[in-house]
């Protein structure tokens, strides 16, 4: 949003000032000063920011062990390849209903979820395949669910929008825009009630911010100090309506101030920036239950769902954002840090391709649910 960039920068300065003590409510937690990332959404400016923090990013990469970094990159590549395959088999009629793909946003799920520990919870929207796999649900179970098969993650009852795993602390994919923001707040409520130091990661798109439940939830979370990390995945479009046509202000992280809550802008194309911001939020949550709002700015390469003709934006716009592809940016940094070589990347790509092919084969060969399943799981005993 180049036209308003200057004004937004000015506003951000104000945020930083208030973080330095002028605003009592937010002074302890508002962390804007900790991060180099501003609300810049202009591709060139975002890249310039990224280049400026490159050295520190390489430094934080070097602090992590190779295996962990490899897993982060693998999950991003797997997520990308899995979703590309979904588009392919969807067009073949193998997947029914709605199917919302995550391509372009991989750094968000990977950067946030790989910062969690045992007992932490995750809940997200209907764009949930990649989060489900990072949580530990196998690509086979996710693909079989998309195929509506008995071996699917939820026995063919939920489909694309409703992946769940109680065992892995993955509280689902939810289909009502914003509904999971309140549910995630309740999960954090339970974590606090039980006296744990665990946190909940609650994902939603930027369009959900316009729903009442967002405001109701953040108010209670800050009021009661619930360890919920609200992750707004800003991909610029709520279905086909751009954020600027739907929201009175552009900078969502600043809405946190209205609740006295910590808020940060995060470059969602930089997986390490996502990780660092998440770690800061997690620290606040574990310490005294303080919630955080992260606005993580990314870009959705595909349509809202597979049935989206995409007439509301140009190919040029999509290409422009793809110049900052999160996987390529991460690979470049890993190379520069001398952790991985091109050969390593090829191996990870091959591994991801094999996993996706195995998932499709598994889904194809699995049986449909028995008709008696229609009436099971309506009520619990």
């Amino acid at each position: 949003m180049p036209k308003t960039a200057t004004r937004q920068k000015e506003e951000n300065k104000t945020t930083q000032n208030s973080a330095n003590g002028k605003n009592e409510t937010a002074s302890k937690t508002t962390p804007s000063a900790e991060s180099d990332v501003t609300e810049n959404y202009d591709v060139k400016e975002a890249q310039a920011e990224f280049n400026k923090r490159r050295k520190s990013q390489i430094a934080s990469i070097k602090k992590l062990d190779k295996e962990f970094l490899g897993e982060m990159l693998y999950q991003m590549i797997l997520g990308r390849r899995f979703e590309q395959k979904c588009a392919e088999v969807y067009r073949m009629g193998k997947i029914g209903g709605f199917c919302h793909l995550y391509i372009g946003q991989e750094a968000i799920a990977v950067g946030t979820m790989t910062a969690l520990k045992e007992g932490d919870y995750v809940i997200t929207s209907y764009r949930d395949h990649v989060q489900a796999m990072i949580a530990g649900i196998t690509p086979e179970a996710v693909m079989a669910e998309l195929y509506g098969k008995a071996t699917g993650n939820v026995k063919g009852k939920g489909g694309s929008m409703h992946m769940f795993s109680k065992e892995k602390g993955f509280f689902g994919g939810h289909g009502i825009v914003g509904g999971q923001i309140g549910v995630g707040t309740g999960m954090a409520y339970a974590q606090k009630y039980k006296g744990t130091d665990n946190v909940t990661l609650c994902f939603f798109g930027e369009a959900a911010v316009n729903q009442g439940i967002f405001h109701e939830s953040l108010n209670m979370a800050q009021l009661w100090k619930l360890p919920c990390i609200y992750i707004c995945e800003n991909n610029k479009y709520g279905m086909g309506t751009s954020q600027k046509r739907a929201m009175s202000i552009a900078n969502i992280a600043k809405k946190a101030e209205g609740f006295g809550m910590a808020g940060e802008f995060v470059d969602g194309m930089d997986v390490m920036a996502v990780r660092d911001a998440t770690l800061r939020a997690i620290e606040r949550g574990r310490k005294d239950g303080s919630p955080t709002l992260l606005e993580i700015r990314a870009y959705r390469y595909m349509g809202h769902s597979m049935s989206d003709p995409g007439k509301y934006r140009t190919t040029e716009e999509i290409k422009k954002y793809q110049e900052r592809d999160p996987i390529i940016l991460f690979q470049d940094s890993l190379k520069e840090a001398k952790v991985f070589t091109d050969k390593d990347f090829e191996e990870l790509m091959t591994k991801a391709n094999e996993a996706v092919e195995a998932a499709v084969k598994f889904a194809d060969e699995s049986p449909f649910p028995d008709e008696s399943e229609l009436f099971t799981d309506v009520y619990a005993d």
Partner: protein
Amino acid sequence: MTIRDALNAALREEILRDENVFIMGEEVAEYDGAYKVTRGLWKEFGDKRVVDTPITELGFAAVGVGAAMAGLRPVVEFMTWNFSILAADQIINHAAKMYYMSGGQFNIPIVFRGPNGSAYQVSSQHSQALEAMYANFPGLKVVMPSTAADAKGLLKSAIRDNNPVIFLEQETMYGMKSEVPDDEDFTIPLGVADVKREGSDCTIVARSFTVPQALKAAEIIQAEFDVSVEVVDPRTIKPLDIDTIVASVKKTNRLVIAEESHAFASVGAEISHQVMENAFDYLDAPIKRISTAEAPMPYARNLEVAALPSVEKIVAAVKEVCYL
């Protein structure tokens, strides 16, 4: 014991019994409850177990659903069920469907409770009986007690149930007194109807608000016409104990359904249909329904009386089906 105190006792006993039970809602704690159902509980149990919420129905219903997914057993009070409409997304789209769409992984042990139906001249937005709406969704259970014992026994069962339960009280009935067993383990299973008055000539199926009215009407009919009326209270709307209703109709051959909700697509319409399916050949007269008038609730006292079911209207209906 009053219905109010019976509900209070049930809440207190279940909070003591299970550390995961807590109650949240508007004014439930420091204020002692808008209708005093939670009186004394905050003083006894404190902020953790008795939680005042902001006026944010959708938000705190959602917190209840999330907490239930994570293993707690919330009791969520709506100051009245009218306000639950703000929270309908969480009740209907989330609580009711979570167990199914998670393939049986996440059940939602939650009770949503509060007063349903009319009060005294509180007008259109505060006088709705919403049981038909909630009973329409698979995944929800719907309970409507009419006595103190039922209120206590059913609420305890609802809190122990592993599913979302819609628990509908009635504001004008909170002060009504009846016997309640002393036993702390006293519960009434969900889905079991109660014959509130035995009779042989006509059945009235009534719930909540209309049960005392039906019992009074039965006395009048008995005294004036020597006709014996049976009053069946399903107590739980979902699951519905249709067997008890059908058995009664097979005995009396006549049926009046009295309900506080509007007639169109009501629970009474459902009962009427199920009786037609199961006891068509036993009916000696068309089924008669007494419901609230098909208009938003008016304020003026005379208009409100005209809109609601009453003893007189039920007496007239019984006379009609008995050809008196």
